């Protein structure tokens, strides 16, 4: 199952895109879509861990409402501060998981992934942080290292 999963996923995704593009669910069109999906070249991929994949997908979907909340906070908040943080990767050996992680982090307006660091073990993230109050922040922070 784990070995078949990449094939099933790519084929299902391509077939779904084909159906959306043609807006036609007749049997012949589905057959053509399936043939196209199978004939297009595929990247050689390692077996996918299903549980980690579902978790990454769920977190990516949750990032969408979170992105809107952050956008609202960014719009109503005062001028934010920039900083660089890092976050551990889920599994940097599986490209799909890295893609979902990068998507989840970059989608939200407060964080953008800059790249991988530490030999692929951590993401380098550029983040915004809202200042609490003008009194608490005397603007002498200087550049972050």
């Amino acid at each position, binding site marked *: 199952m784990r070995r078949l999963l990449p094939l099933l996923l790519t084929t299902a995704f391509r077939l779904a*895109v084909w*159906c*959306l*593009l043609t*807006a036609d669910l007749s049997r012949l069109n589905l057959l053509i879509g399936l043939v196209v999906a199978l004939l297009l070249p595929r990247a050689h991929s390692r077996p996918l861990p299903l549980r980690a994949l579902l978790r990454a997908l769920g977190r990516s979907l949750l990032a*969408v409402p979170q*992105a*809107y909340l952050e*956008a609202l906070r*960014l*719009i109503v908040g005062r001028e*934010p501060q*920039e900083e660089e943080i890092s976050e551990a990767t889920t599994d940097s050996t599986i490209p799909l998981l890295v*893609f979902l992680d*990068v*998507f989840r982090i*970059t*989608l939200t*307006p*407060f964080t*953008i*992934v*800059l*790249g991988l660091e530490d030999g692929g073990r951590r993401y*380098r993230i*550029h983040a*915004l942080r809202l200042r609490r109050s003008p009194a608490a922040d005397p603007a002498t922070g200087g550049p972050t290292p």
Partner: protein
Amino acid sequence: MTLASFADHASLLLLGAGLLLWFWGTWPLLESRSYLSKLHALSVADTLGSVLMLLGLLLRIPGQWPLLVLALLALILWNTIFGYVLANCSLASRREPEP
């Protein structure tokens, strides 16, 4: 209120909100801010604003839903990943001066 007029009003609201996010995110591009903070603002405008507009269009012309859903998916994925690509490129140019 009938369902059709409700959809009409809701779509207007979504289109308006999308336009608002667009303008809010485009304004920082004209200011002298750091490259990356412009990218943060742009992700609000480009991705989130455009998604709201497409949802508004979805309510307005439901007959075209397959293409609109495809556009929605492509927009979210491409915009977000392009943001990452641009951020990553800025990292490369920042490292260049070092020996």
